[in-house]
C-alpha cells in the first residue's frame, strides 16, 4: 500500500475513521472502528497500524477532523468536520448542493457551492434528537438490531407520530406505545419520520439547493433516504462510503499540504 501520500483522520463521537489517499486524492485505504473511551490510545493504535502499512509516517501529512480532532497530537493540522465533509463529498460527486450529514451524536446541513466551497451550514444543538443516537436509544428499547431498523420501518405503511423534540421523551413515548400494543414496525417508522422532520427543519434553515447529498453512518439506514426524499420531494444521492467523507476530506487537505497548496489554515 505504498500509494498512500496523505492521511485524514475523523475522530467522531461514535466512530473513528482514517483514510489514506494517493497522489490524485483517490481514497486507497481506510480503517473504521467504534470510538473508544480513550481516544488518544485509539488514535495511537490507528497510527501504529498505518505505519505497518506505509512504513514511516515522517513524510505523510495527517489532517485531523471530527469531534476529537484536538486530541490528535500527531496531526499536521486540524480542520473542522464541516469543511472536511464538504471537501470529501465534493470530491466524490464533483458538484455542489446541500449535504446532510447525520452522525452518531451530531448532525449538520452544509450548503456547498458549485466550486465545492462551504456557503453556509447549521449543526444540531446539544440535544441528541435528530442524530443517530436518537434511533440507537429507541432501537435498544425495541430490541431491534440497528442494521435492521430501516428495513423494519419501511416494511409497513402505518406509522405513529412520535415527539421530535427530545430523545428521552421519545423513548418514554415508545414505552407507552409498546404497552398499548402498537406494532413495532409502525413505531419504528414513526421514529424515523420524527428524526427526518427535525433534519428537514435544519435543511430549511440553510435552504435546499438540489441535489440533496447524504453522508454519515446513519444514512446507511435505507429508511432515512426514503423518508428524506418523501419529506423534501428531492432525490437524494449517497456516496460510496458515507461514513468516510469527513476523513476523506481531511486527507485531501493533507494532500494539499504535501503539494504546498494549502487552502485552509
Amino acid at each position: 500500500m505504498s500509494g498512500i501520500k496523505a492521511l485524514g483522520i475523523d475522530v467522531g463521537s461514535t466512530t473513528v475513521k482514517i483514510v489514506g489517499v494517493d497522489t490524485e486524492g483517490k481514497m486507497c485505504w481506510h480503517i473504521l472502528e467504534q470510538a473508544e473511551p480513550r481516544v488518544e490510545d485509539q488514535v495511537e493504535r490507528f497510527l501504529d497500524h498505518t505505519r505497518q502499512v506505509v512504513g514511516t509516517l515522517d513524510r505523510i501529512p495527517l489532517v485531523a477532523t471530527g469531534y476529537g480532532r484536538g486530541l490528535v497530537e500527531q496531526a499536521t493540522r486540524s480542520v473542522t468536520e464541516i469543511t472536511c465533509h464538504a471537501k470529501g463529498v465534493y470530491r466524490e460527486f464533483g458538484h455542489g448542493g446541500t449535504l446532510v450529514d447525520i452522525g452518531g451524536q451530531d448532525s449538520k446541513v452544509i450548503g456547498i457551492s458549485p466550486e465545492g466551497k462551504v456557503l453556509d451550514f447549521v449543526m444540531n444543538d446539544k440535544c441528541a434528537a435528530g442524530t443517530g443516537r436518537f434511533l440507537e436509544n429507541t432501537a435498544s428499547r425495541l430490541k431491534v438490531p440497528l442494521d435492521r431498523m430501516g428495513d423494519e420501518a419501511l416494511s409497513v405503511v402505518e406509522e405513529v407520530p412520535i415527539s421530535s423534540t427530545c430523545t428521552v421523551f421519545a423513548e418514554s413515548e415508545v414505552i407507552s406505545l409498546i404497552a398499548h400494543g402498537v406494532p413495532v414496525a409502525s413505531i419504528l417508522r414513526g421514529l424515523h419520520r420524527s428524526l427526518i422532520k427535525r433534519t428537514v427543519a435544519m435543511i430549511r434553515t440553510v435552504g435546499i439547493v438540489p441535489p440533496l447529498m447524504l453522508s454519515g453512518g446513519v444514512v446507511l439506514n435505507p429508511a432515512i433516504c426514503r423518508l428524506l426524499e418523501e419529506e423534501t420531494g428531492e432525490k437524494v444521492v449517497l456516496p460510496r462510503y458515507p461514513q468516510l467523507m469527513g476523513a476523506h476530506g481531511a486527507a485531501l487537505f493533507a494532500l494539499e499540504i504535501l503539494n504546498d497548496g494549502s487552502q485552509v489554515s
Partner: protein
Amino acid sequence: MEVISVIPRRLDVINKYKEQGGYVAAVLPIHYPRALLRAFNVLPVEVWGPPRVDTSHGATHLQPYICSIVHNTLSFLQMGGLDITDVIIIPHACDSLQGLGSVLLDFVPPDKPIVPIYLPRGRRESDIVFLTREFYAIYQRLEAITGRAPSDADLMKSIRREEGADEVLIKLHQSHSCLPLTDIAFYRLIRSREYLPAETFIELAQAVLAKDIKKPRDGIPILLSGIVPEPMSLLEAISEMGAMVVADDLACCGRRLYPPGRSGDPLRRMAERIIYAPPDPTRGNPIRERREHLLRLIENSGAKGVVFYDVKFCEPELFDLPTLRCELQKAKVPSVTVEVDINDPLSHQTLTRIEAFLEILNERR
C-alpha cells in the same frame, strides 16, 4: 495592558459609592436613563445574569424556555446577590424581563423597590413623548426613594457627564482594531461601563485611547452580534482561532452607543438618546434598519463576516435572525448563528461552529 488590570472590581465600586452616601440600583438589561439615576446619587450597576449562578432558585418560578439571563437574575436575587442594592430597575426589554418584573412585584417581592421602565417600540415623536413621561414617573419614584429632587440644572449636569462617557465609549469602539488591547481586555474595559461611575470610566478609557497604536491587529476581522459575550473566554477562543472582533452589535456594548441628545429639556433629552441609539430588536427597530446598521459597521470596520452569538430563548433576537441572515446573504456577507446558555462553559459545538465559519471566511480571503 496595565490600564485593564486596574479596572476597579464591581463590589469595591459599590461599597465605595455607598460609603460616600450614595445609593445603588441593580439595573436589568438593556436601556435605561443612567443620567437620571446619577442625578439622584444612585449608581446603576447592571445585572446581565450574572453567569454561572445556581439557577434552581429561579427555576421554581420560571419556565425552562425563559432565557438564562432572566433565570440567573431571579436566582441571584433569591440567593442574596442583590441585597447590597437599594432599588431594582427593570426595563421592559422583552416579554421575559417584563415577566420577571411581574414575578418580583407580585410573587417574590424583594425588600426593596422595583421600578419598571416601559420602553416604546419605535422612533416616532409620540415615542419620545411617551418615554419622556416614563422618565418623569421614574423621577417621582426616585424622589420618593432618595428624598432628593434634582433641578433641571442638576439633571443637565448629569446628562453631560454621561454624554461625555458615551462619547469616549464611541471613540473606543471606533479605534477598536488599532488599540493595544486583546479582544478580551477591550471588552472588559467596555463592560466596566456597566457599573463604573461615568467619571471613573472616562479616566480609564482616555488612558487607553492615549495609547492608540494606529496599527491594525492581525487576524480575520469579524463582527460580533447578539446580547452579551459570555463566557468572556469566547473572545480568547476567537483570538486563538486566528480571528479578531473589529466591531460589535451586542446589546450590552455596541447597541448602547447613545448619541448626544438635542433637547434643552433634560428628561426629553434622555429619551432622545435612547430612541436614537443604534437599532435594537428589543426597541422594535425594523430589520431593514438593523441590516443597514450592520452593513455600515461591516464597511467601516472591514469585518468579513458576522457571528450571531445569542442567548438561547432570546425571542427578540431569534425572531429577527432568519430574515436578517437572509438579507446579509443577499449582500454577500456570510454569517453564522451560535446559541448559548450563559451558565455553560464554552462548548465544543460552539467552538466548532465558529471555527468552521472562520474556515469559510479564510477561503474567501
